[in-house]
């Protein structure tokens, strides 16, 4: 502990340089934690998916729709217990930058299949009875200040829904009891959207409840078999695979985000290492003086390495603190794509360990050089 003051004083020698190094580590750790949070959010959605729900889409793409007549055929498939459907609405709330998920759903069946959507019974009743009613997640309500009874107007975002704005009344604020559903979305009556749709009776995707998760593959194959060689061929997957395929629309996110994190961390390591090397070079005489006073080379090593470690750790603490403050559903609107976004404790720990690793590696070579300094040669440099 008695050397801590010495380490801190040394780090404050060039305040600007130390600050820039700390900030570079902070930004690297922030990016790492934030990108991990995005990945974890996607994975959490997939992990929380129900094993008793399977999703049927058009085989060509999620962007294309299929007729409601598929519903009866899917319902009649052995193993299917219940069925619901939904459409992506894609409306604009005041400004295109106010992006959040809006889904036209068959309310009764949807709420039956998704018990994760938790509603007050009275409010649920009001929603079911109001054709232009909608429910919004508590996360979304917090962002835009929505309250029960508020009017929401959405401009049409997809031409198939005509040109007139859609007016809604908020009938309920829902909470979620699992990461399969996010709390920043809006749900409303499919019939309301359909009655003004230029293409009537079209569904984005069906969700079927199956009785036995072990038979999910067989049931999915049976459903797809029914529509094979038709104009509306389907592809049915488990909800988990559906979530994963949704994510894969963005490409190999894991590899992309991992590569970005690695590049940032490595470049920060070079920055921190260079700073420490410069710092030691400038202090050659001081180190020689300390050695003359009797400081053993091991203590010199620890002092220099400790300085790098301290700067990096402070950067790490700032980075994870910033990530915790910014990357959470209350602050960051992920548009409903990442329901469970947030920097968890494990990411905080990994971020801090990363900063420790950067500090250790950055300080290793300068600390070794400093500890092996020949006193007489170092003193002669200024004499």
């Amino acid at each position, binding site marked *: 502990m*008695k*050397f801590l*003051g*010495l380490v801190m*004083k*040394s780090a*404050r*020698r060039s305040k600007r340089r130390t600050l820039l190094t700390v900030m570079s580590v902070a930004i690297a750790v922030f990016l790492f934690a934030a990108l991990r949070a995005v990945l974890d959010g996607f994975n959490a959605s997939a992990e929380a998916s129900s094993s008793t729900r399977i999703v049927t889409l058009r085989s060509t793409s999620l962007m294309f729709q299929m007729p409601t007549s598929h519903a009866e055929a899917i319902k009649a498939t052995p193993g299917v217990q219940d069925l619901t459907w939904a459409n992506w609405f894609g409306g604009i709330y005041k400004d295109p930058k106010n992006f959040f998920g809006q889904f036209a759903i068959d309310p009764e069946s949807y709420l039956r299949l998704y018990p994760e959507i938790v509603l007050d019974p009275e409010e649920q009743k009001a929603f079911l009875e109001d054709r232009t009613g909608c429910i919004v997640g508590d996360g979304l309500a917090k962002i835009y200040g929505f309250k029960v009874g508020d009017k929401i107007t959405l401009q049409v975002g997809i031409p198939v829904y005509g040109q007139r704005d859609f007016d809604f009344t908020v009938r309920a604020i829902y909470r979620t009891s699992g990461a399969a559903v996010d709390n920043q979305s809006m749900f409303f009556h499919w019939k309301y959207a359909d009655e003004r749709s230029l293409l009537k009776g079209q569904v984005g995707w069906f969700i079927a409840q199956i009785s036995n998760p072990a038979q999910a593959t067989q049931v999915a194959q049976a459903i797809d078999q029914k529509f094979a060689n038709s104009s509306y061929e389907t592809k049915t997957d488990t909800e988990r695979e559906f979530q994963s395929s949704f994510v894969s629309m963005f490409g190999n996110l894991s590899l992309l985000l991992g590569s970005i994190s690695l590049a940032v961390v490595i470049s920060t390591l070079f920055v921190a290492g260079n700073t420490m090397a410069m710092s030691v070079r400038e202090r050659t*005489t*001081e180190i020689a*003086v*300390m*050695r*003359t*006073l*009797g*400081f*053993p*080379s*091991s*203590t010199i090593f620890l002092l220099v390495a400790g300085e790098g470690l301290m700067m990096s750790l402070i950067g790490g603490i700032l980075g994870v603190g910033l990530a915790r403050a910014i990357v959470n559903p209350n602050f960051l609107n992920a548009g409903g794509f990442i329901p469970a976004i947030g920097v968890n404790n494990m990411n905080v720990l990994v971020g801090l360990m990363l900063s420790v690793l950067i500090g250790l590696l950055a300080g290793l070579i300068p600390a070794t050089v400093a500890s092996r300094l020949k*006193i*007489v040669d170092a*003193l002669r440099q*200024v*004499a």
Partner: protein
Amino acid sequence: MALIELRDVSKSYKRDAIEIPVLDRVSITVDAGDFLGLMGPSGSGKSTLLNLLAGIDRPSRGAIRIGDTEISTLSERSLAGWRARHIGFIFQLYNLIPVLTAFENVELPLLLTNLSKKQRRDHVMTALGIVGLGDREKHYPRQLSGGQEQRVAIARAIVTDPTLLLADEPTGDLDAKSAGEVLTLLQRLNQEYKKTIIMVTHDPHAAERASHLLHLEKGTLVEQTAVGR
């Protein structure tokens, strides 16, 4: 028994495979409480001799005994510990750590001891008091004059109460007045506190303060003089 004994000490450096002799079979003895001045022209080997005595350099041949310790055979780690206990070194350019206050600079060698914070404070304030800078403990080196910086450096050298004080041209960077104050201080440390001091100097006025003088030339001892004070 003499405090310091050098027996046939030689030192040479290698530069591009060429061996350059700096000291050649120097043998001297210094008694405890002596104030020895080392004189000689540039390149005569006096600073090298001082470095060998401080244990920051090793002889190529010969043996150096200080007190009961044969320092030429000590390992690097043992030598560092020995320096911390027995040597106080005063540099020509003071070599204070600029980011530390006068107090912290003087406290530096005490960080290697097991003294408590309060004990360290007492020691530091005593040392600063001896050099007459007890009121400058919170000043940084840049806030001190050259003479004051050198006195802080002397406080740092004496704070551990070392066996031997080594000074490498301690007045070489000072004006005449400050140099006089520093030399008076060294003389006081020698006479009042019985410190054994070895001082390298070019300055004949500085040399006059020593009790004995050794003259080196081309790495060999050419003359030994007793100075009447």
